């Protein structure tokens, strides 16, 4: 539902049904709402069948990359004797995204249940749930929920009497966006600096502590119990368009809309409905200028591109951007695109782990060049310089942080070039002091 607003008729509430309902946070409350049925069912099934079911459902990763979840699970080796790990990525920090926070603080047992089903399937006895350090309230709620789940036998040496050991360890981050990248997260769990690792080896071969590991996002795992209880076909049927995008997706809508919040829709819902109906559209007298559909790491879309765009993996790609994490940042006609893009690049410059030169230097210089433009001292050749920097930052580093910094710069110059030109020509008043 459009938490903190009442559910909108165009939503399909599945994961967000109990947002705002503190009763769903307790173990007893979760059982009353049908909780842990999915885990019980999974524990009675052969592991391969659970994986096959998730594959059939078409569920894809909700953290940003959209990789098919069942396929990811199937990459884990079978019975080779090494310990396996499941890591739940609760390091939500992609600007514009605030859905996992709600899942963690309103439906903690859905997260635990999804984790337990995944762990069972991939033969992992230990689950690390990596919660970003700033999420103090979700941390407290998850801590209590894990204690309760142990007390009721859903977790532990003999989960629900199945003979399977499933342990959950909550691991607190300490302030680093990059730890949301899966290999950086593994390093952080190991007690190291959160530098991403070169792939291969992929986590399924050598992940956390060098052992086979699967990493899934909070929202992905929260969807799993529903697939177990209601079936792959039912989940797959929750799509209005592409058969490659199934189920429901939480979209966090923020920025210049009247009702910012989390809206859950079936894949394929028109983007226009999300912005103008569910989120209430622009403030009075304002019009839509641009939006970023999948967290700040994906290309900017213009108002014209929003028209006819379907909210699913393929629909957004068709309009030149990506679904990403589903964090929709809306900008109306009052927005200074150059200043806004500068604020994104400053974020990436701050969050670069600095191990790759292209990223360490590229994010910093991109930010400085934009500061030069915003302080009224930009030159016409600065735009080409920014594009050259972006080219050197795309596809050339260990992880995609520098690609993410380049995306709004390239799409911003392509789509809103006149605003850059206005600063450079002196037609727009500088907004930053000269440095």
């Amino acid at each position, binding site marked *: 539902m459009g938490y903190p607003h009442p559910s909108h008729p165009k939503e399909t509430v599945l994961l967000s049904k109990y947002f705002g309902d503190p009763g769903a946070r307790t173990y007893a409350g979760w059982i009353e709402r049908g909780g842990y049925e999915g885990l019980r069912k999974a524990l009675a099934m052969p592991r391969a069948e659970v994986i096959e079911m998730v594959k059939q459902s078409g569920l894809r990763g909700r953290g940003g990359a959209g990789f098919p979840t069942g396929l990811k699970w199937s990459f884990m080796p079978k019975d080779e004797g090494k310990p396996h790990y499941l890591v739940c990525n609760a390091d939500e920090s992609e600007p514009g995204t*605030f859905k996992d926070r709600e899942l963690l603080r309103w439906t903690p047992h859905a997260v635990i249940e999804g984790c337990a089903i995944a762990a069972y399937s991939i033969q992992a006895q230990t689950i690390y749930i990596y919660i970003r350090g*700033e999420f103090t*309230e979700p941390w407290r709620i998850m801590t209590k929920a894990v204690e309760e789940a142990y007390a009721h036998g859903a977790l532990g040496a003999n989960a629900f009497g199945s003979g399977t050991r499933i342990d959950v360890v909550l691991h607190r981050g*300490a302030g680093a966006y990059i730890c949301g990248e899966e290999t950086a997260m593994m390093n952080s769990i190991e*007690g190291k600096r959160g530098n991403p690792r070169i792939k291969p080896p992929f986590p399924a071969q050598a992940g956390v*502590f060098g052992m086979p590991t699967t990493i899934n996002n909070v929202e992905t795992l929260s969807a799993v119990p529903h697939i177990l209880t209601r079936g792959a076909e039912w989940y797959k049927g929750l799509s209005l368009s592409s058969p490659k995008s199934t189920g429901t997706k939480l979209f966090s809508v*923020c920025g210049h809309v009247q009702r910012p919040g989390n809206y859950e829709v079936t894949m394929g819902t028109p983007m226009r409905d999300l912005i103008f109906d569910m989120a209430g559209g622009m403030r009075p007298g304002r019009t839509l200028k641009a939006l970023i559909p999948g967290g*700040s790491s994906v290309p900017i879309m213009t108002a014209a591109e929003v028209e006819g765009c379907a909210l699913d993996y393929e629909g957004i790609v068709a309009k030149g951007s990506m679904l990403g994490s589903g964090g929709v940042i809306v900008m109306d006609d009052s927005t200074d695109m150059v200043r806004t893009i500068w604020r994104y690049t400053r974020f990436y410059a701050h969050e670069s*782990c600095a191990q790759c030169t292209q990223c360490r230097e590229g994010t910093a210089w991109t930010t400085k060049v934009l500061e030069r433009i915003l302080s009224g001292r930009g030159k016409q050749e600065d735009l080409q310089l920014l594009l050259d920097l972006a080219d050197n930052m795309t596809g050339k580093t260990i992880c995609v942080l520098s690609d993410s910094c380049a995306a709004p710069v390239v799409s911003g110059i392509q789509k809103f070039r006149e605003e850059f030109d206005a600063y450079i020509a002196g037609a727009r008043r500088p907004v930053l002091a000269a440095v």
Partner: protein
Amino acid sequence: MSHAAAQGDGTVTSHEKIFTGERRAQLEALFAKYPTRQACLLPALWMVQEARGWISEPAMAEVGEVLGVTPAFVRGVVTFYTMYHTHPVGRHFIQVCTTSPCGLCGAEETMQAILRESGCGELGATSPDGRFTAIEVECLGACGFATPILVDDDFIEGVTPERVPGILAAYK
């Protein structure tokens, strides 16, 4: 038990051990949750910060000793993560999100109000009465509730300049 150690500024301070008694037991209880001791580093650093308010060099050395890693390794980790303090901060630590989505919704005005009302004056500074330290933080993950701030462990949503005096009054 305490030992003398040189601080970054050359002054010698005594370091009262952190991992003794109950806290030591608390840390050792974590050992079973990870296959290596080193993996307890982030949790151990959180325990240090909770106990002392910040993480000094002697504290880093003590953590290294307990977990079997070098002080330099610990320092590398401490300085990687923005939430660990490597110097003393005010009694209450304020983090204000000013990343783009909140920036679109007035976060910078909220930040200015916090700097003014808290007496911090500028980012990273501590107010003269030692009550507050305020910093800007990148994306707190609550973009629909602009502007979110963290005061110590309290996550406060929808902060506007008008609300700032009332919010800060609760922190003595």
